[in-house]
């Protein structure tokens, strides 16, 4: 295909051309492409730059972390006292459903995606991801899905104000935000038990699934194909490795839930019998399909966190990662074992002895590769020179807390013991330890580590210590007592409880802890804002780090590396700084070719925008709003049109010629 390219020759200074001085290029459609614009909003909406996309993922995810956390705070406040009636049962049920969904799909997954986007191309020395426009599409599809899922709240508010009432297929149902738990067990998701909230949930997750799938495939291709010369697979940073594994997990796990959601949607909209008991449907099938996705999903959440830790520990111990290849390998093993253990969420459904035993043992087996990682992290610290900078503090917290969460996982894996734990607060304790104590701390560590690279400013002061103290204390005070709550018989997902069961004190303590944790997170937000507003310039390599992303400027230029680096070793930058002469990073000669930059494009944004009318249309149709079928069809047309124009407009691109590597 021919390409439209505008040659731009930068003046031969060390200064790269400012992108907004570039002229927009024409596309094959005859239109001009969006320019690199003076208008900031337009620039960000149409950007195909993985760094900007990563930052947007991060910002939106942090917003949803606050939203999900806010929901959790309401939950905790309601539970502080027995028979509290701060909120109604239905509102509570909606809150925990949306809390779980939000945290997993709208906070942690996109936070991980933010790091993937920003770091992976830098870490492998690439100009961008393999398909920059698909990348932009993934981002906006994610936003569309988030809007669709959360729209239920708007409708619910309207209903409370008396401005809306569901008619049509879900007439009489009052739950307009999802209220069936984040794993939506059938048959509670049927039209005779739940209202339009479930439809918002189905459509929203479906869209988020498409976003994740397209992003994941993009990253696999990027990592396989776009590595700089010399960046062999076994020289890749562990974070990149984990991105690869996670992307593959997404590629193979999401189809299961996509189909299950499709079947559920058909049940609700077109009268099929997949999960309708009266028609012969087996609700248990939903559980299987959900967890075939759901268990890999929890490793999708945690493996990037492990990748982050595997980057940070070596930097602050001044040692290479202990047992690099084993850490990488165990990451892959965790990922793929993850496909073989899903039924450990279903020990109480009466699977039968043999199946229960098999899944019990397979689940235990996962402790081995996970343990290997922990051991190697300790091995990394051992004999090193451990600096307690902010990223390191959170990373150490991660190892400790994750281990505790993992141990309660092992307690679950013993099926008979799990019969007492399943669907009790013990489970809640388990996964919040791995989620907050694990993933969240790791993500915070990542933020402290890489934000200077992202925005070019260094942290000011040591508020981070207080963030660490409040969040670690907070999370332990919140979630440790939950183990006891569970073992004292408190079932999860209960909007209130009676006095006299011995749960009062624990619940109160948990609630207090949640507020401490919230305060810690508030401090984090403050610290980030402070860094943005009055951070000092960070320099290229503020931490004396080891991997390639630190070899370029902070923040990196649009083109990442002025000249493609040639990688002679693992821990490329470290070897460049301290290694022998033959391990220095060299640069490819581009023979005056310049750097090929992709053009910006409206099309991914427009195509993704089409998802909003599709999702809202289908759901509102279920709630009985007239003409919504047409809106859904309109959305499909927008989607189709966007993709078509996207294909026709051609990839485009232009060249830049920065003379000297800014590093």
């Amino acid at each position, binding site marked *: 295909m021919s390409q439209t390219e505008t040659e731009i020759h930068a003046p031969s200074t060390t200064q790269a051309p400012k992108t907004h001085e570039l002229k927009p290029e024409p596309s094959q459609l005859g239109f001009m492409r969006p320019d690199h614009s003076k208008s900031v909003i337009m620039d960000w909406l149409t950007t195909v730059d993985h760094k900007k996309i990563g930052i947007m993922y991060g910002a939106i995810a942090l917003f949803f972390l606050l939203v999900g956390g806010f929901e959790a705070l309401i939950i905790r406040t309601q539970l502080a006292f027995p028979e509290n009636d701060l909120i109604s049962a239905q509102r509570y049920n909606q809150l925990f459903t949306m809390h779980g969904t939000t945290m997993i799909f709208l906070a942690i997954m996109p936070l991980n995606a933010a790091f993937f986007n920003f770091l992976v191309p830098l870490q492998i020395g690439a100009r961008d991801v393999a398909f920059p426009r698909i990348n932009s599409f993934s981002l906006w599809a994610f936003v569309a899905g988030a809007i669709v899922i959360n729209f239920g709240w708007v409708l619910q508010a309207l209903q409370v104000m008396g401005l809306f009432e569901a008619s049509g297929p879900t007439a009489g149902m009052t739950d307009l935000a999802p209220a069936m738990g984040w794993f939506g*067990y059938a048959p509670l998701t049927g039209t005779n038990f739940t209202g339009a909230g479930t439809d918002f949930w189905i459509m929203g997750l479906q869209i988020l699934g498409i976003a994740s799938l397209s992003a994941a495939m993009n990253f696999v291709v990027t990592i396989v194909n776009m590595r700089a010369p010399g960046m062999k697979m076994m020289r890749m940073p562990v974070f990149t490795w984990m991105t690869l594994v996670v992307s593959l997990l997404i590629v193979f796990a999401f189809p299961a839930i996509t189909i299950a959601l499709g079947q559920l949607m058909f049940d609700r909209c077109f009268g099929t019998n997949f999960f309708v008991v009266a028609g012969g449907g087996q*609700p248990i099938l939903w559980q299987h399909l959900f967890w075939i996705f759901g268990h890999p999903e929890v490793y999708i959440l945690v493996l990037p966190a492990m990748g982050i830790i595997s980057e940070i520990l070596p930097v602050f*111990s001044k040692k290479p990662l202990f047992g690099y290849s084993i850490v990488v390998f165990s990451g892959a093993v965790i990922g793929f074992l993850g496909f073989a253990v899903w039924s450990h969420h279903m020990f109480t459904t009466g699977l039968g*002895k043999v199946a229960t035993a098999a899944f019990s043992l397979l689940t235990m087996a996962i402790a081995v590769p996970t343990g290997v990682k922990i051991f190697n992290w300790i091995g990394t*610290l051992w004999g090193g*020179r451990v600096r307690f900078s902010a990223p390191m503090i959170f990373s150490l917290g991660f190892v400790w807390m994750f281990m505790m969460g993992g141990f309660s996982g092992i307690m679950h894996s*013993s099926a008979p013991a799990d019969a007492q734990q399943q669907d009790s607060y013990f489970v809640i304790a388990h996964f919040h330890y791995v989620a907050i104590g694990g993933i969240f701390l790791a993500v915070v560590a990542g933020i402290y580590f890489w934000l200077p690279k992202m925005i070019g400013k260094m942290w000011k002061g040591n508020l981070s210590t207080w963030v660490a103290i409040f969040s670690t204390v907070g999370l332990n005070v919140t979630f440790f007592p939950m183990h006891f709550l569970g*073992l004292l*018989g408190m079932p999860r997902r209960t909007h209130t409880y009676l006095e006299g*069961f011995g749960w009062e004190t624990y619940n109160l303590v948990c609630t207090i802890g949640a507020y401490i944790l919230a305060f810690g997170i508030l401090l984090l937000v403050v610290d980030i804002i402070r860094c943005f507003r009055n951070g000092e310039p960070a320099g290229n390599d503020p931490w004396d780090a080891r991997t390639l992303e630190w070899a370029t400027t902070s923040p990196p230029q649009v083109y990442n590396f002025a000249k493609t680096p040639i990688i002679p070793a693992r821990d490329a930058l470290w070897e460049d700084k301290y290694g022998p002469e033959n391990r220095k990073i060299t640069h490819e000669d581009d023979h005056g070719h310049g750097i090929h930059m992709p053009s910006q494009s409206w099309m991914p944004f427009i195509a993704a925008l089409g998802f909003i009318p599709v999702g809202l249309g289908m759901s509102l149709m279920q709630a009985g709003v007239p003409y919504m079928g047409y809106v859904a069809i309109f959305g499909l047309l927008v989607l189709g049109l966007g993709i078509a124009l996207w294909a026709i407009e051609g990839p485009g691109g232009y060249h830049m010629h920065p003379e000297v590597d800014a590093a």
Partner: protein
Amino acid sequence: MTVLFLGGCNLDTRMTTFVTKGPVAETQYDLFMLTVWVTLGIFIAVGGAFAFAIIKFRERPDDERPMPSQGHGNPLVEIGLIGASILLLVIIAVPTLQGIWYTHDTPEDPESFMGAWYSGEELAEEEADNPLIVKVIGYQWWWAFEYPQLGITTANEMVIPAGKVVHIELRSFDVIHSFWLPRIAGKVDLIPGRTNSMWIQAGDNFLRWKEKQGVAGPEEESPALRADYAAYLEEEIHNYYYGQCAEYCGDSHARMHFRATVVDNKEFAEWVIDERTGHGTPDGKTWDDWYAAYADNPDSLTGDLNEGLKLFMGRAKCATCHVVKGNPRALGVAGPNLTNVGSRMSIAAGWLNHRIEEDGSIDLEKQYDNFYKWIKETDVVKPGNRMWKAGGGGIGELIDENGELALLTEDEIHKLSLYLQSLK
């Protein structure tokens, strides 16, 4: 930290899994404790190494140490640790497998066969060699307990014999629920379209009890031993147990409790007879006479209880959804069976309690209040529940012949409550 908590807190609570009363829960608890000890051990070892590494190798001000060696790992250490992990997992895995097998199938325990202990009227021949079977059926948001061998049904409060294996069959009417009686057994789900099963046993049987007492030989048998065993059942097991639905099942999932009363053989037989016969009319008439009077001249039936019964059968429509054994026309099955509801310790699926914890008797005043409250504002007690909203609001309202709204008056609710209290 664990020790601190264990020391400072009471773990013997109503739904505890720590203080178990039966072999199933005990097996589960033992396994749990095994995992606790193993992981605690690992935690101390690994956490210790971790803490040691952090402290020992921390960077000190004006650190003189040379740059750490840039070594890349040590396969021997790795293999050793992997081996150790696997070994530790085997320690958990073997008892886990045993536990799965033990808790899964209802054991063949001759002492638990109905023929061996049930002293009520004659059983069908083929039932004598079976343990007691209870069919549990979950509804949004209450429980029905059927005893197919005995032909009785009760709701929300089940009664089981002490020390005997009980086979439980679990079904659901609408969505998934989960049967959880923590002190006696872990949960098993009730899944529509399927019958699940489990077994429970409140207290040990004679054999297991003897083993625990260290009494020699399984054959060992003496009246004194039997008496000791009976005393053990009486003192430690004979009790009132709390359970709750553990699988999220909609709006009032939190209020879907149930109870199990564990009784001795004699009490069990009495209870069965009580349930079978059910109730007569308030003034001792036969039911035929009562209905004749009700049809001809309702005003001749006087007194609060008769008034209540009239409402129950008539204007308030209770009988369309509730069974009251004995009463030939109270046959509705959409709601819980109300036979002997007056002697239950709680109503509304365990949410409204009137048990006096000290002596296990009924607080009559509270009971009255609870009935009153339940009839008047079911929707407040249990949001979204499927009962007729006799007190107004909710999914259905009472309409008189002219199509006018005709809610129950305070007085009518009062009489209904009194009538319900009399059902014992």
